[in-house]
């Protein structure tokens, strides 16, 4: 039975005392529950792979503790940690057949031959490669998806305490990726091993993980379930990283215990935001970002009832279930081009035309301006 994995103020500085020290992990502290499938998510260079490699022992952390149950594993050499890991490149051995690849960890542990056979067969059934195992080819003769399964089987066969997956789907094509992420979830739930899944793809993370941690520049920005991260992002970075968030540059006109009134400077566009959706501390007169998801905005040719701002349609994209309008807002209302998703094509709007942008419902949130992503 797996136990909890706790990171306690973990710091990793590359090139300590060197000319360009890089603070890859800053005071990372959180707990992954036993049997949980936990995703580390963030843009490249955010420290997610460093955290994974530190967990495996391939990197030594500069300070802090990593506790498995109540044992500090940060001092245990990597080959004694009993961890399973699947690499982005799969790292299968071309000089061994798939049986020997999977059996590798058992051979290291000097497992008796009969048990090696039984365990390899079992795990290959679990990952759905029992037929390939009978032919037992070299891993180079397998397809990408099959290689992935061999890599997973190899990491699971010796019943590791923790399973680490380092962008395991990055080398597969789009269709296979969607299929394999469901497979990984199935296999993880079947074995119930505490698992960390690293990815830079937020869609993948949301689909696979029980919980997610969003990292940026070595700092954990937010931890929660997919739904929590999407509906209640804690800051503008998370808001714009988990899905898209459009930001109006606004100013707090009024604030009390229950709500705040934010107005885009010098316009009639103002919105009352409920306290539950205010992230950060504001005072009257401070600048803020008023955030709205693409599906929370409306474009229209005619002036709508609710307050609106003018903009110009740059590009219209049909994306199946919805149509995405990219709108450049006029004046200083926004810093980036807005993405607005409409349920269907708005008949009288063409690319290059002026439109009015308004909020569909009062679900907009407030974020501190300095954290703009």
């Amino acid at each position, binding site marked *: 039975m797996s136990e909890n994995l706790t990171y306690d103020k973990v710091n990793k500085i590359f090139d300590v005392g060197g000319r360009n020290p890089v603070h890859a992990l800053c005071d990372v502290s959180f707990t992954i529950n036993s049997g949980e499938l936990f995703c580390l998510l963030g843009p490249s260079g955010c420290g997610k792979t460093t955290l994974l490699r530190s967990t*495996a*022992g*391939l990197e030594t952390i500069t300070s802090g503790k990593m506790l*498995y149950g109540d*044992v*500090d*594993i940060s*001092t*245990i*050499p*990597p*080959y*004694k*940690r*009993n*961890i*399973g*890991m699947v*690499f*982005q*490149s799969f*790292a299968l*051995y*071309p*000089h061994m057949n798939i049986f020997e690849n999977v059996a*590798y*960890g058992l051979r*290291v*542990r000097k497992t008796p031959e009969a048990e090696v056979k039984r365990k390899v067969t079992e795990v290959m059934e679990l990952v759905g490669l029992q037929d390939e195992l009978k032919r037992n080819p070299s891993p180079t003769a397998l397809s990408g998806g099959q290689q992935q399964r061999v890599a997973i089987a*190899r*990491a699971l066969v*010796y019943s590791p*305490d923790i399973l*680490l997956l380092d962008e395991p789907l990055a080398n597969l094509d789009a269709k296979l990726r969607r299929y394999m992420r469901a497979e990984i979830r199935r296999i993880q739930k079947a074995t119930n091993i505490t698992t960390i899944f690293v990815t830079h793809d937020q869609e993948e993370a949301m689909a696979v993980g029980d919980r997610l941690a969003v990292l940026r520049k070595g700092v954990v920005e937010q931890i929660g379930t997919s739904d929590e991260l999407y509906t209640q992002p804690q800051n503008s970075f998370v808001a714009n990283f988990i899905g898209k968030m459009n930001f109006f540059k606004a100013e707090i006109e009024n604030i009390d215990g229950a709500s705040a009134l934010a107005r885009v400077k010098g316009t009639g566009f103002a919105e009352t935001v409920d306290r539950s959706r205010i992230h950060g501390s504001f005072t009257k007169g401070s600048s803020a970002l008023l955030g709205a998801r693409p599906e929370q905005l409306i474009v229209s040719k005619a002036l709508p009832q609710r307050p609106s701002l003018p903009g110009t349609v740059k590009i219209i994209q049909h994306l199946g279930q919805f149509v995405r309008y990219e709108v450049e807002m006029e004046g200083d209302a926004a810093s980036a081009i807005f993405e607005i998703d409409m349920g269907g094509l708005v008949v009288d709007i063409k690319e290059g035309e002026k439109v009015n942008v308004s909020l569909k419902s009062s679900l907009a949130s407030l974020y501190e301006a300095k954290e703009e992503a």
Partner: protein
Amino acid sequence: MKARKYRKDLTQALVFLIPMAFLAVFLLYPMFTTLIRAFMAPADDLAFHGFSLEGFKQFFTSRLYQKSLRNSFVVSISVTALTLLIGVPMGYFVARVKMPGKNLILSLGILPIIMPSFVGAFTWVILLGRNGIVRTFLNWLLGPLGVEVPSIYGMFGMILCMTLTYYPFVFQLSYGAFASANPLLEEAAMLMGAGKGRIMRTVTFPLILPSLGAAALLVFVRAIGNFGIPAVIGGDHYVLPTLIYFEVNGFWNINGASSIAVINVAITAFVLWLQKYVVSRHEYETISASRSEIKLHEGKGIRIIAMLYCLIILIVSLLPQITIIVMSFFEKWVGLFPEGFTLANYIRIPKYSSHELFNSFYLSILATVLCAVLGSIVAYITERKKPKGAALLDLAVMAPFILPGTVVSIALLSAFSGNSAIRLTGTYAIIIISYMIRRTPYVYRSVAASLTQLNPSLEEASTIAGATWFYTFRRVSVPLILPAIISGSILTLTTLLQELSTTILLYSGKTRTVPIQIYGAVQDGKLGAASALSVVLLVVVFFIVYGMNSRQGSKISNAFKMG
């Protein structure tokens, strides 16, 4: 997982320490003593009696030293220029013109470098010597026009021999560059309206420049370090390596020889720097991975010219091989035809040269195995562990690659002869050490290149699966780099079997090798015996190389590349 104290795994430190200690004692220390001795007055013991510039002063006062230096420059520069002139068109023709038997041309085109260069030299004596067959014929032909072909002895002969010996480097490397250049780049230039000449000048040539630079460097370094050819046909035209031999063999003046060695190395280092400087400003990465098939020239005119060109070069450069085989069956060959057919040259080998044959194989095989171990471990350290000073380690291991063989011998003699703490003169050990120092770069380069191709996660996966460092090294790293170790070792073995320039200063009666025996026979004018022994050597080397090429399909010329 249990919390307990873990002992540090010391195997790794142990495995790394031995090669490091070897390099320190047998590479760095001798280089250091050479440098010290270069500034000492002529004497044979390593003791400091105060600085002296005696050795270097010779370059300003002695006519012999000045002439040697000038000869070295003239020979190396001419040879480099001529090999480029001959090799580049040949590489282009074979890569870009439709012609039959390309693989055969490539295989035959590598033969001159797998034959000991001094063997090539003495066969040219048979062909172009004072009464050589070709010279006699040419003089008869050209005599009425008042033209006389110079005798092979001297500058002309050295340049000719070295050019024909070393042009394969340029041929093979430029062939590789022309064949692997992305034709899309040339097609793009053509679509933008560039003519053939402009494409050649602005696209094709700049892209192969790094390969040409590498080939030119390779030729220059070998030409300036070559001992065998000037020793056989240089006559009284000394070059730096033969001058070193002269100082040591004639006067046992190791300090004086050290001065010459330092000058020799300084020139080589300068040229290496020059090449890096020029090439580094012209090195490009390929931007796109997509490429199309190279379109070959199919015009009748160019095909005939290309075929004739390759044929003539191959025949001329392979004349020594043919001559030597014929010569080995005859007693003498002066004038047009060989005289006195005999098998005695071969029959005498067991009686007179069995000890030398044993020595050659024993020394070469043992040194090769040790080279393989040393080179692989050092490559693993620089590529995988990347310690501080990895670049320095790389430089130290690669340095002997550009050092002339005579210089390596001088370094070892300066450190381990006379009154030094460890005396190795005349032993098998000193020859094996010299072989290791000189040839480890082959395995090292080969393995280092293979390791950069190898994803480190293969080894990490093993660590995570619970394997110790040594288990991972044995079960994952070594099996995966084995092809590189083998190809580097084969190259090491074949070149060691023909080694002359290092051995000549280090051998004793007990440690004579086949090349020494051949060299001696040539000096005594026993060309038949020398030829028969050379043929034996040639056959052995040919089968080793042929065996590797057919098994691995890898191009041996790649292993000659550096950096």
